[in-house]
């Protein structure tokens, strides 16, 4: 009888832990890191213009980076340690500005940026671009609860938002603009954020 009761209690605890949602500890992340984030965004944009690429940290400790080197004919994906010499070698081999990209990756690592990418989107059939930066915040996670990431979207121009601060598809439309299936909220006129279970 006692054994059965302890099993029920244990199951109850497991259930309550799994039903709790993940809590983000670092709620003021953007304000604390906004200057560094701006530097990352600007330097990434400049480097992307010379030769397109994206970078993502694929491990929990943000020590392993996956770089996607985009050429006209082929996208090369390499995964390696941030401090491995072959990172610089690989970037140089494909004609990238190895040192500036390395510093960008180190900068990302220092403020827990998990991913940076440049996306195309279309307004009136014309292409525009935005930079997405994912942040791995400090979390309190319960058993089976999903991870959470801040994702910041940096647009080139001011965007439209509804009265609740949600990103809209344009000035004259009420449709929400979703990026990767996520609704974004306003930080500034051209920067908005969402919280997602995936960093890319």
């Amino acid at each position, binding site marked *: 009888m006692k054994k059965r009761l302890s099993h029920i209690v244990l199951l109850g605890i497991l259930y309550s832990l799994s039903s709790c949602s993940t809590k983000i500890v670092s709620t003021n992340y953007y304000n604390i890191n906004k200057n560094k984030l701006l530097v990352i965004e600007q330097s990434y944009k400049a480097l992307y213009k010379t030769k397109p690429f994206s970078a993502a940290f*694929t491990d929990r400790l943000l020590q392993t980076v996956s770089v996607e080197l985009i050429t006209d004919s082929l*996208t*090369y*994906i390499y995964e390696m340690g941030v401090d491995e010499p072959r990172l610089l070698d690989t970037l140089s081999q494909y004609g990238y500005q190895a040192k500036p990209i390395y510093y960008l990756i180190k900068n990302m690592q220092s403020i827990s940026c998990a991913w940076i990418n440049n*996306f195309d*989107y279309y307004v009136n*059939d014309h292409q525009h671009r935005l930079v997405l930066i994912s942040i791995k915040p400090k979390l309190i996670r319960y058993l089976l609860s999903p991870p959470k990431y801040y994702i910041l979207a940096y647009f080139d121009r001011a965007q439209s938002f509804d009265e609740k601060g949600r990103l809209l598809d344009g000035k004259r439309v009420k449709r929400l603009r979703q*990026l990767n299936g996520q609704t974004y909220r306003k930080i500034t006129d051209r920067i908005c954020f969402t919280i997602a279970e*995936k960093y890319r």
Partner: protein
Amino acid sequence: MVAETPPLSTTQQALQYLDVHKIKDSSSFWIHVKPKLFTENLRLNITDILSFYPGRSTNFCAYGALSYLVIHNDPLGYVQFMTELFENGEATFHQVFFKPSKAVMLSAGDLRFKGVLDIRHAEQMWFLTLADHFKGYLNFFNRNYNPGDENSFWAATNLAKFNRMVKKITPYKVSCVGSDLVRPWVKDMTAYLQKRIKNGITVLYINNRIIHKKNHDKIKYSIPTHYVILESIKLENNLVTLIYWDYGNRTQIQVSPKVLRKIIFGVSQCTLS
């Protein structure tokens, strides 16, 4: 590299058809599809057969792989089908009759934030029409299209459905190993795939979450999520280098033979003989 196979029609024939056949200024069936973008898209598809782009965060990757097979073999058939579908709202492709639902017709040309798919109106029509027509068990609970379903199980494709689509709308014969849940029992996967690509077009059904991680959790679901066309594979210093096509571009990745075995759930070889 992929073995060369004699096509049913050529790019030249498809271009000639587009030059001669004047597409209507608008379609009462596809009200959001712009004829100019539609025609430009068809020209791009037939002149650059790698251009098909199933869109960001959609479940259209299987239809992307299918498009590669279609356009590789019969660009004229594709263009004729698409123009007929645009003008009449229904059309037949390789003896399969397609009549998309009204919801699909309303959404084509209006998909947003899917990358360059936003302005590829012919591809939007094509992918939505295919997903609307072909059904498998993954589509059981969501059979009718609602806006946004391009990202949901409505558009998902299991391995048997993929093979069935290939058999129905292309002249290819399909031989397949693997399944939706259990990996194929192949001793030396690299050697096996090297043999397969010599004799036809090889489609891999893979677990993309392992090679394209989206979170930092150590435990990953062991299920396939993505279709790619394998173009080349080689083993050097215990590292497998793969080049595959998906999402309008070729990608090269390097994985260990162990990871390669872990990610592959299905191998469909498509041959003309």
